[in-house]
């Protein structure tokens, strides 16, 4: 699935990386626990409600390229700046984490484990 399809299905907005929406992704991981994200094998997409600079830093360390923020969370300027330095894509949607995961799972995105 492309990031563009994800954005459409979630009725989401793109906070950063609108030039990268043709990227194909297959797997997602959802967590607010960055300690957990740091134990993952490579996956491109994180769905999270945790919206602070450590979310971006953790994704940088764990090689995550795409973050979907749920429940209307908006990344701050310093988060966008750090994400931009690392060529990341930031997507913001209004849905809850449960609903976001449900929609993407139904659409064919695969879990990591």
């Amino acid at each position: 699935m492309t990031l563009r399809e994800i954005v459409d299905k979630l009725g989401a907005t793109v906070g950063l990386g609108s030039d990268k929406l043709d990227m194909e992704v297959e797997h997602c991981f959802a967590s607010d626990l960055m300690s957990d994200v740091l134990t993952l094998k490579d996956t491109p997409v994180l769905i999270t409600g945790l919206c602070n600079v450590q979310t971006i830093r953790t994704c940088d360390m764990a090689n995550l390229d795409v973050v979907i923020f749920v429940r209307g969370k908006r990344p701050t300027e310093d988060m966008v700046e750090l994400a931009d330095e690392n060529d990341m894509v930031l997507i913001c949607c209004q849905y809850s984490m449960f609903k976001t995961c449900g929609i993407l799972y139904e659409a064919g995105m695969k879990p990591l484990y």
Partner: protein
Amino acid sequence: MHQEYTVIEGDFVNAGKASSSVKKTLKQLNVNPQVVKRVVVALYEAEVNAIAHAYGGKVIVDIDADKIKMVVADKGPGIPDIALAMQEGYSTARPEVRDMGFGAGMGLPNMQKNVDRLNVTSEVGVGTTVEMEVNFQ
């Protein structure tokens, strides 16, 4: 190559700056990306620990042709029982650390999983030193 960074207590905004800088250096040196990830995840965990649990400290990194050695030395309360701290799920993190997405008791075990050599020494009331090495091959 020798690099040193200062870590400040509670400075979560800058947590990971040292790891980020090391990541850039290793990428420039064309180290295998999977090895880079192991290095920076372990160093980031140690950096966050020093910021979350101690009163600040230092990150010292030495990069050779075949390996990286990292030392994270903090001034802090120390760890009374290192074996207990190494257990997955054991944590003494404050609520504000958990609010940042950490403090699940996975840091030290995750460092161990990612490095080739880990040595943790600690003195209660003085501080903790975490020494890690990762081979590039």
